């Protein structure tokens, strides 16, 4: 197990959410992202940011500023 933030995930990597900090928490909660949710990094956009994640069956793109507020374990 390794602790990191969502934005550091590489393509194809899967992680479980430990904590969400900052003002994005409610927004991410609404998308089904809470403590314990499994997230897969699906792909990076051509300019490297945003990055698309697979969250509960849906593909959601997040900017690095926001995804760096999500602590995960791999």
């Amino acid at each position, binding site marked *: 197990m390794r602790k990191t933030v969502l934005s550091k995930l590489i393509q194809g990597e899967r992680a479980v959410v430990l904590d969400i900090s900052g*003002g*994005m*928490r*409610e*927004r*991410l*909660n*609404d*998308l*089904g992202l*809470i*403590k314990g*949710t499994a997230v897969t990094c*699906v*792909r*990076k*956009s*051509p*300019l*490297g*940011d*945003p990055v*698309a994640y*697979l*969250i*509960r*069956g*849906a*593909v*959601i*793109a*997040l*900017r690095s*500023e*926001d995804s760096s507020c999500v602590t995960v374990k791999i």
Partner: protein
Amino acid sequence: MRDCQNINKKHGSVIALGGNPNVGKSTLFNGLTGLRQHTGNWPGKTVATAYGYCSYDQKEYIVVDLPGCYSLAAHSAEEEVARDFIRSGQADAVIIVCDATCLERNLYLALQTMEITPNVVVCVNLMDEAEKKKIKPDLTAISEKLGVPVVGTTARGKKGLDALMRAAVQVIENPKPRGPLDIQYGGHDGDAAALVSAAEEICRGSITFGDRDYIKNDTKTDRFITGKWTAFPIMLLALLAVFWLTITGANYPSRLISSLLFWGEEKLLLFFMWLNAPDFLTEMLVLGIYRVLAWVVAVMLPPMAIFFPLFTLLEDVGFLPRVAFNLDKCFKKCRACGKQALTMCMGFGCNAAGVIGCRIIDSPRERLIAIITNNFVPCNGRFPTFIAIISMFFAGASAGSGAALPSAALLTCFIVLGVVTTLIVSNILSKTALKGVPSSFTLELPPYRRPQIGKVIIRSIFDRTLFVLGRAAAMAAPAGLVIWLMANTAVGGVTLLARCSGFLDPFANHLGLDGVILLAFILGFPANEIVIPIIIMAYMAEGSILELSSLSALKQLLTDNGWTWITAVSVMLFSLLHWPCSTTCLTIRKETQSLKWTLVSILVPTLAGIAVCFMFAAAAKVLT
């Protein structure tokens, strides 16, 4: 389709449709009401509540389509609309439409709704997609756990709609108190997390997944569409292809329609002569109103009838959210929202629609930026101007279909220029009048879906083409009258038209234009489509009358009036960068609720246009 804040309940009970974006809510709405309403593949297509009627079991029901949202927490304007409507108690039943392929997340909204009202029906839509992906939700089990009816549907194939209405009617006629739900609120993760966990708990054991690799096909496509090296070339190629098809396809029907309508003009003249109508009336009606109308129809109808379906197809497939995904970083650098790429795309159709579409942007600051800069993408009313000028001056009017490709390429360059201007102006606004840092951004990339080609064509022709054409025609008729009157009313021996254009001439010359062109842009305020017809009428009124049967005759008329390639480029630049049309201005006023921002939205593109045209004209003078 009408906006509704307060619905007259006399017509029957009210059923509200809520749900996440991209779950086929609008398709379901169309299926239930038979009312055509545009559905798209990006979040926030339904930007206002729309309603229609539906009869079931010999009773009338009012079905309200709420904007798609992920939550009722009111983070954005759309969520506020949805929440306020459900809270107001106007709905006798609320159907929450869910995506069968990601039910867990969708049930969150259903649970939130059930906190407000017990009269909820959960509609599990996209059952066909779920089947393809081998996802099998056990609807009976979910219904038992939720304590509300759960109905499976495939809105595209109109499957399950009857059962859905039956369930909704049952809820209306026998309202029950809330079911056996037990949610553990008050955990330190907050209520939202409690609801998400509850949704997870409900789905646990009630959904079987056959093959978890279903996402792989989309990943393959995305590797190209959003690939590091392929994304931008593909976007440009798509734009080029759309324009090429539009120009090539519109060429022949445009000529056919215009010869037909000018034949009609002759017959109409003969008819008036036979009636012994006074000369001024004949000329006013035929040469004033009819001619401008004929031009607008001939020039606009064919490109629109091709462009709109093509664009709708791109929407339907799921291409546009990827464009936003690709371009987001550019917008972030300019401290704006990536969803501005979507509102920009809507602007291609109609800037007023683009401005309304800006509601999908959560941050008020970023929304204003998107509204102010929306006019930098040329709407469908301006495309005919570009296409006509490009084919006359740059791609060779006499050349046949071989000229379509260079025309399309040039048009693409102009669009790219518009996009670059959007970014630059957004950046300037972010550093001056609308200071701030980019806010958070979430964008769902829906799965690629096979477009419903037949429906797309019908829908885009009826909903968009005829609507826009009708509006343009309604504006063209009075404008034709005004210009004819101006050309035929003399004050002190000089016509009003000559006076006005003469007055504007010195200023217009600095922009590489002439007085007539600038006057045409001013008179074209009601609708951009009529700019070129006004220019033609003004030139023809001042000099020789000639047959305008072809583009080469038109080019002759323009060059006789002093047009060069510099004038042509200047007109296109000014068309790209000038004040929004009246409809767009009114929409901006309505959306921003502020006269100040409406004025800013008029001034910013106008000043940009004046600056760019001035610089271009000055540079051209030095070069030639």
